[in-house]
């Protein structure tokens, strides 16, 4: 009979020995250097993010050409929204992270429902286009917050959450 008892294994802490006792840069210095390094990538990022947004617009156009949309196309929209979410805020586009997060979760919670709700997906992507076009590097104004709230409410209604 297999025992249900847990075996606890103490693993030698080789990393503590490896890093030694020499102090490293303090956290504020690390943050300043990292922010400077990421800031120097801003121009590259503008190209990347435009590529992602182009890719998600193209996937939307493909999704609209067939009823119901191909599940692989919906999965591509979900994956691209995840990529946009993962990097937007790092490069000063917090609204892209927020809308990417919302679209990703909407599709992930119910891909079938998402496939039947192409216009709601399109509304998320339109908002991404707006943020990029207007280069909104903060939380936006009342209009942007209203759009986000509307997208959230529509998603909740369709997902019945």
């Amino acid at each position, binding site marked *: 009979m*297999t*025992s*249900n*008892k*847990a*075996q*606890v*294994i*103490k*693993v030698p*802490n080789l*990393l*503590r020995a*490896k*890093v*030694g006792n*020499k*102090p*490293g*840069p*303090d*956290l504020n210095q*690390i*943050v300043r*250097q*990292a*922010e400077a*390094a*990421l800031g120097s*990538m801003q121009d*590259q*990022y503008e190209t*990347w993010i435009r590529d992602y947004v182009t890719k998600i617009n193209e996937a939307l156009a493909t999704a609209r050409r067939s009823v119901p949309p191909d599940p692989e196309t919906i999965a591509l929209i979900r*994956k691209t929204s*995840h*990529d946009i*979410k*993962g*990097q*937007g*805020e*790092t490069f000063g586009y917090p609204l892209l*992270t927020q809308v990417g*997060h919302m679209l*990703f979760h909407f599709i992930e919670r119910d891909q079938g429902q998402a496939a039947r709700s192409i216009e709601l997906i399109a509304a998320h992507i339109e908002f991404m286009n707006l943020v990029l076009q207007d280069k909104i590097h903060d939380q936006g104004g009342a209009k942007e917050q209203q759009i986000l709230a509307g997208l959230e409410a529509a998603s909740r209604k369709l997902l019945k959450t």
Partner: protein
Amino acid sequence: MANFSLEALSILVVDDNKHMHMVVKAILNSMRIKNIHFSENAADAFMELRQWHPDIVITDWAMEPLDGLDFVRLVRKGADSPNPYVPIILLTGHTEMHRVLEARDSGVNEILAKPISIKALYSRLVSIIETPRPFVKTKNYFGPCRRRWDDPNYKGPERRHTPDADAGFNVA
């Protein structure tokens, strides 16, 4: 939080998004960590683990065909795993509690939400070095102890052999 010189560390970053490689590299470089390898999928990462022996692995969750949790399970439980004990930090856009528990139960050491916070990544690395948890092996689990703290006054039944022993994961 302790202040360690992290420059001796070697780190494997597993993410299918090349742009994320650049972001993580920039952040790790600011911590003076230069010994970094990158893999775009779990199979390549497994090969790296075998050939290069990194100190720590940072892996994304959302990858295909094997996702980050599949990779973690391969590392922890695979018969041919080169290092079942390697510390693993999971990067994820999933922050709902059931997802966090799923990740924890796969055997990750730490979870880090996207977009990556510089401070949060640093604190995860320090936590792995400063307060490593013992590994626990049960019929259903192999990985770092899922308890974050011991309650010296706890007098209840042994919980380790139940699947839901404790939470305490910080995802920020």
